[in-house]
């Protein structure tokens, strides 16, 4: 019982920490994909966001300005993807990988001097104040960015469902023909959706360097930006489900380290792979030949 309790607490703690970047990146990817494009470049955006946030926090002393600048940097990189993909015959999947490389390259290039210095971190909310157990207290030290992410998910859901611009994004994502008939600027809307989505991903990067793990180095991201594509499939392109997806993927990633706390050191890589297997099963179970996944935007190149 004691061991199970320890693992559970460690897992919840891990999930709360690890899921935040997943949440932001998957929300960003969700927004981009709902407009009909896929952006694999969010991996690069994440790393660039982490570096920019850390450097800004170091120079200004305010981590929140760092978060803001990371969002702007992400949006800039995202708009490069959006702009180039607006040209005819440019493949968005390949462009995403180019952006991924360029983003990490730029981040490592300018980030060299910031590996050593210590930058002010984001504060954490002590939600475990009611508990006497130190492990529970430290487990419930939740970053405010987690709640920002929750709010962003709800806001994005509302945006898609109830706003005029959200409807336009959905139209552009579901049928370019319909959008053209309505006189909507398809490329402009997709560019803005990609830029905004990458802005969200940039905030996810800021979390990595300013909250958890909480430092800047070149091994900071473990591929969360690419995984976002799987998360969005898992969430069926629904921003609210992105929260669940982020928590599940986060918990699966946290299982390994938390099992280590009770002495289990083997086999956790398989748990780590579990959410991917589930994603694959979801894909296999819900797609039939000639019919695409429910909730998938019709214009998405990966949906055909």
């Amino acid at each position, binding site marked *: 019982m004691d061991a199970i309790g320890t693992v559970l607490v460690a897992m919840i703690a891990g999930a709360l920490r690890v899921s935040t970047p997943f949440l932001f990146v998957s929300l960003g990817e969700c927004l981009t994909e709902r407009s009909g494009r896929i952006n694999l470049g969010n991996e690069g955006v994440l790393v660039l966001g982490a570096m920019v946030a850390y450097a800004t926090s170091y120079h200004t002393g305010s981590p929140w300005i760092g978060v803001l600048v990371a969002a702007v940097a992400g949006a800039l990189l995202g708009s490069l993807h959006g702009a180039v993909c607006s040209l005819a015959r440019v493949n968005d999947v390949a462009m995403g990988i180019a*952006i991924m490389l360029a983003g990490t*390259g730029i981040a490592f290039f300018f980030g060299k001097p910031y590996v050593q210095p210590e930058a002010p971190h984001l504060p954490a909310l002590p939600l475990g104040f009611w508990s006497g157990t130190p492990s529970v207290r430290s487990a419930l030290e939740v970053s405010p960015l987690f709640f920002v992410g929750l709010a962003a998910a709800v806001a994005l859901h509302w945006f898609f469902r109830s706003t005029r611009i959200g409807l336009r994004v959905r139209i552009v994502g579901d049928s370019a023909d319909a959008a053209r008939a309505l006189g909507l600027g398809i490329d402009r809307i997709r560019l803005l959706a990609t830029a905004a989505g990458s802005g969200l991903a940039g905030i996810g990067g800021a979390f990595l360097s300013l909250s958890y793990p909480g430092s800047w180095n070149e091994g900071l991201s473990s591929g969360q930006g690419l995984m976002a594509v799987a998360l969005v499939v898992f969430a069926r392109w629904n921003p609210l489900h992105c929260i669940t997806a982020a928590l599940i993927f986060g918990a699966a990633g946290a299982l390994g380290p938390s099992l280590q706390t009770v002495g289990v050191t083997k086999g956790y890589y398989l748990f780590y792979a579990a959410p991917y297997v589930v*994603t*694959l099963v979801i894909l296999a179970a819900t797609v039939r030949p000639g019919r695409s996944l429910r909730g998938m935007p019709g214009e998405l190149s990966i949906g055909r």
Partner: protein
Amino acid sequence: MSSAAQVQGQATSSPATAATDRFYPARWALESVVGPLAALLLSAIGFSVFLLVLGKSPTDFFALMWKGAFASTFSLDNTLQRAAPLLLTALCVAVPAQLGLVIIGGEGAVVLGGLAATVIALPLNGAWPPLVQVAMAIAGAAAGAGWIAITGLLRARRGINETVASLVLAYIGIALFNHLVEGPLRDPASLNKPSTYGIGDANMLGPLPGTDLHPGLAVGVVACILCWVLISRTSLGFSMRVTGGNLRAAQLQGLPVQRLIILACLIGGGCAGLAGMIEVAAVHGRANASLIAGYGYAGILIAFLSRQNPLAIIPMSVLLGGIGAAGGLLQRRMDLPDATVQVLEGFIFVAILASETMQGRIAWFQPRARG
């Protein structure tokens, strides 16, 4: 798969209107060379501006880059060694792309191919080395082929998108690799960096006879040529290109589309698995995290830069290998961070991918009514 036309390489599909215009094939070939070259030049100019802003000399930079990549035997060896795995991982993208498939999970096939090659070599230790090496190559290629074929099966039988499936499978493959290398297959002596037992020095692939060249280079170049022949000179390759060009037409012709998809994935995955085997047999001598080096992802870009033409993969891989090889020299001589080459690669990729849009837009390159 209606995005097929976008993915399908122009270079492998023969010009249709050539009959009326004698010089069109030549102009068409010229276009597919001039486009990427112009994009390269543009990215070099863009990067020079970047360097000037940072107060570094672009002429020094490119001179050093030439020196570090191609000027001496040593640097050329380094370049070709880096190019070798890329040749094979790019084929993992380019072959399925003939059918309009975008496979981005080559990384999983590389690591599992490397692992399978190591596993088969362990019990064979002490046998005649060439035999062990052949067994390793077969095991590596089979593991990679099997892994990518899962994606092909899911695509062909269930209509699951191959891009997402291959990406997810790459993560599963890497997790499986980590699990096996850090668990059941781990050599207890490898403390800091969990590894499997070594394949034994006798079983390592040496340089190509009479040279210092990386053995993977020969394998890669041969594989590229074979794939090119398959795609552009055989009826099988023609069926693949028909399927990629127009799925409905292929089905109406009675082409075995599902089997073609799986076959293309088997070939591509086999190449990527072979890349993993060669990395183990020629460089690392054992399977460990060094195999997860991003060769699979670099291969995707090279395939797109080559417009999915297996022959064009050869110069593109050498170019990228050269840029990577020059990194060390640039770092020492110009005091630039090691990520500089990555930034340059980013510039090049964006420029070349964007240049795709110019294809077919310049009138001079287009077929004329009468030749």
